[in-house]
């Protein structure tokens, strides 16, 4: 168990800067985190939070400045160094081997080498740890078959495996839903306050900062704009404006004229989910709420024709969406914003203007002028000839939105459209999706963020273990939706 020494900070960052070529990712950042404390690091995408975490975890080196671990100089050259010093990181992107089981993945980060006995031990350790923390995890299941939510939990368990006294969490709740993240935050709190660990917690969910953090540091453009301030002296609105530099207004749904049914999912079943029945009308936003891994991904794959269903139909006018190839879907004026956007939304190494052609019939020769107007119109910060990989997360998603929504689609399939985006880009995306309903678009909006769905939808359908667990109309009863998501309805 970590030593209790209230006066010595567990981890100290002193004047750290980091630049990549001409990009100044961090400028003279200083902060400290004590034992038994949760320090939130708040900032937009690209504010430098992740770079800071990577330096602390030994994945990157500072260009200048120093780190201290319990007032000893600390300069990890590798993640292993950091773990040995008692510092572990839970990364935003998964670093698990998909073909290995949960237990084997844990083993991969232990230093023992004898496989048979240690694997059994790892499995039992993992089970004990997850039981104590109130998670359920199948230790013998390959990670590739787990839901995103389960993988995130496993990441946390793996970080705790070495019993660190400093735990770095990089947006651990980004893929979790309300109930899940509440329980995770509860665990994080107990890890700090009961186990006396020091926790540095990166997020841009303000609700969580207010709920769980003791102190908060706000980063903007790689600089500390608010040095560690006690959280209870600040409101969420203040923090939001400090983070983005101006007030953020959430798009709030105003009632629309709702027309005829556009998308009719009629008792759809696959080998894993179902039956699912739902209808989205012209001008309507239907939200699908639910804890990640309750069949949303299956539904997504069926709706885009990537998975065959064993029963039921997905009717859009005369056609069955489950049967048509992508180009037909796009020709039928259906927009698709995928949940796995790094993999399926854009071709990273290609230019922005070429990415805007994906699935469209625009002639290749016209790509540049077309992209120039579109990118200006949708305020994408970038040039048509720059490679999509170089866009920030928010800008990349704006580029996807520009491509998908430009034609005022009749149906929009939006899967986690704002996940992991900074507040500015989130607000933008929400607003443009809602604006589309004025053109008569029907919007199917799947999100793990219940607050978002409550703000933007006309109706909410809850998915639980592969089927529909409840339907809610405005005005929403947050508690009732939450209960349905937890399977109690």
């Amino acid at each position, binding site marked *: 168990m970590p030593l209790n020494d209230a006066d010595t900070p567990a981890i100290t960052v002193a004047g750290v800067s980091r630049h990549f*070529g*001409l*990009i100044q990712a961090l400028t003279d950042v200083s902060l400290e985190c004590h034992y038994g404390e949760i320090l939130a690091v708040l900032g937009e995408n690209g504010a430098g939070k992740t770079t800071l975490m990577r330096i602390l975890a030994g994945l990157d080196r500072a260009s200048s400045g120093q780190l201290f671990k319990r007032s000893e100089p600390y300069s990890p050259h590798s993640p292993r160094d950091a773990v040995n010093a008692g510092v572990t990181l839970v990364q935003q992107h998964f670093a698990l081997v998909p073909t290995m089981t949960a237990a084997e993945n844990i083993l991969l980060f232990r230093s023992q080498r004898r496989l048979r006995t240690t694997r059994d031990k790892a499995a039992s350790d993992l089970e004990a740890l997850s039981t104590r923390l109130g998670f359920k995890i199948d230790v013998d299941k390959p990670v590739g078959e787990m839901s995103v939510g389960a993988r995130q939990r496993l990441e946390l368990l793996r970080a705790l495996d070495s019993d660190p006294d400093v735990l770095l969490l990089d947006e651990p709740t980004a893929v979790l839903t309300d109930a899940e993240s509440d329980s995770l935050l509860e665990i994080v709190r107990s890890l700090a306050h009961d186990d006396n660990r020091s926790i540095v917690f990166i997020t841009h969910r303000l609700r969580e900062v207010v709920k769980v953090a003791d102190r908060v540091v706000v980063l903007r453009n790689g600089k500390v704009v608010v040095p560690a301030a006690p959280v209870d002296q600040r409101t969420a609105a203040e923090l939001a404006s400090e983070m983005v530099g101006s007030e953020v207004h959430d798009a709030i749904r105003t009632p629309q004229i709702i027309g005829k049914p556009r998308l009719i999912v009629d008792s759809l079943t696959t080998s894993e989910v179902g039956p699912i029945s739902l209808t989205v009308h012209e001008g309507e936003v239907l939200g699908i709420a639910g804890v990640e891994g309750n069949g949303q991904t299956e539904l997504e794959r069926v709706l885009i024709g990537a998975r065959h269903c064993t029963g039921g139909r997905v009717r859009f006018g005369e056609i069955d969406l489950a049967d048509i190839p992508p180009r037909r879907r*796009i020709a039928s004026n259906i927009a*698709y914003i995928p949940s796995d956007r790094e993999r*399926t939304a854009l071709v990273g190494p290609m230019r922005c203007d070429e990415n805007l052609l994906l*699935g469209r019939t625009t002639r*290749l020769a016209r790509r540049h002028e077309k992209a120039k107007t579109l990118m200006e119109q949708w305020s994408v*910060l*970038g040039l048509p000839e720059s490679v999509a990989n170089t866009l920030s997360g928010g800008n990349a998603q704006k580029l996807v939105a520009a491509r998908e929504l430009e034609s005022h689609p009749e149906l929009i399939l939006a899967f986690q459209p704002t996940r992991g985006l900074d507040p500015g880009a989130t607000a933008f995306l929400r607003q443009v999706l809602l604006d589309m309903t004025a053109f008569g678009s029907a919007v199917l909006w799947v999100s793990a963020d219940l607050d978002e769905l409550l703000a933007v939808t006309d109706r909410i359908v809850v998915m639980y273990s592969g089927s529909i667990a409840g339907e809610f109309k405005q005005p929403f009863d947050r508690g009732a939706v939450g209960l349905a998501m937890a399977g109690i309805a």
Partner: protein
Amino acid sequence: MIVDDSNVARDPEPPVAGFIRRLFHRGMESGIAIVVGSVVAGLLVGAILILWAGENPLNVYRVIFTESLLKGSGWRGTLLQATPLGIIGLGLAFSFRAGVWNIGAEGQLIVGTVAAIAIVGAISDLPGYIVIPVGMLTAMVGGAAWGAISAYLHVKFEVNAVIATLLMVFIAIPLLNWAVRVPFKDPASFLPQSRTVGNGALPEIFNTNVHIGVLAFFVLVPVAAWVMNYSRFGYLVRGHGANRYAVYANESRPGRLPFVLLALSGSLAGAAGFIQLAGVQMRVGSGTAAGFGFTAIIVAILGRNRPIGVFFAAIGLSAMLVGAEAAQRLLGLPVALTQSIQPIIVMFVVAGEALRARALKREGEREAAIVASQLRSEVQT
């Protein structure tokens, strides 16, 4: 010397250095510098090997160059070998650019050629303007079909494309051996070889001793370059190579493009096989499996999967093959030695590509930062 002083004030480097730096920068950006540098490096390593064998490298390289490109028999030989290499290489360039690793062009060539002789052998008395198109078409269909079998295994059963294509070569070779001994054997010959193509022989270009297949290759290169860079198909090929999942989500179903590409590169391998049969060999025999399908992989890689690059790589590699034989004939230097320079060059190219990817990433980050900060200040003002 006239010096632009505004430039000097900012940038103290001498103009020549600046020119070289810009040239290098441009070269790195397009990737040509990698190939040029790799060829130079490969020749340098080759020079060491030649010195070791007791010859003067400069003399050897001079012989290779003059015998393969300058002398009449030399450049004819170079063009004749470059044609099948280049035509296969163009098909492979599309396949590789899309990330579909067709390593089995040799098998596709063999099957295409055997299919062609099966038909052509029977109709070789008809006029050439019938026999040649029929033979060509049959060879292309045969090559495409062989590629399609690999594609089916790859797409349907998720067999790795390298394995699915390569192993089909080792089915094609015994098929060839059987074909020239049993069904299509020339009854008048004691050797295991087929009848000749008869009227199916490709005509010469005027009196150059070079058949029209060479012309076909020269025409195909700009067509392929246009398709790769300016057509929708080329766009999909490039997109598939960069991120196939995005293509599957927005364009066509998974497997569609790999299937098309394996059939396409197979059909071009078949076409090359027919050109070699009707232009040079006249019969199908042991010489049909001459390894063009494998050497063409090097052609595609050296050409960095760009059609124009494939053109120069095919000529260059073919010249080295012809020159290596000349060096053996005239200087007694083993072909094996001079031939080992090719794979050395390929290794330099592969290493260079990795370095380039890293440099481009750094460059991209820097540019993105500049653009973002410019645009941000524009937005704010």
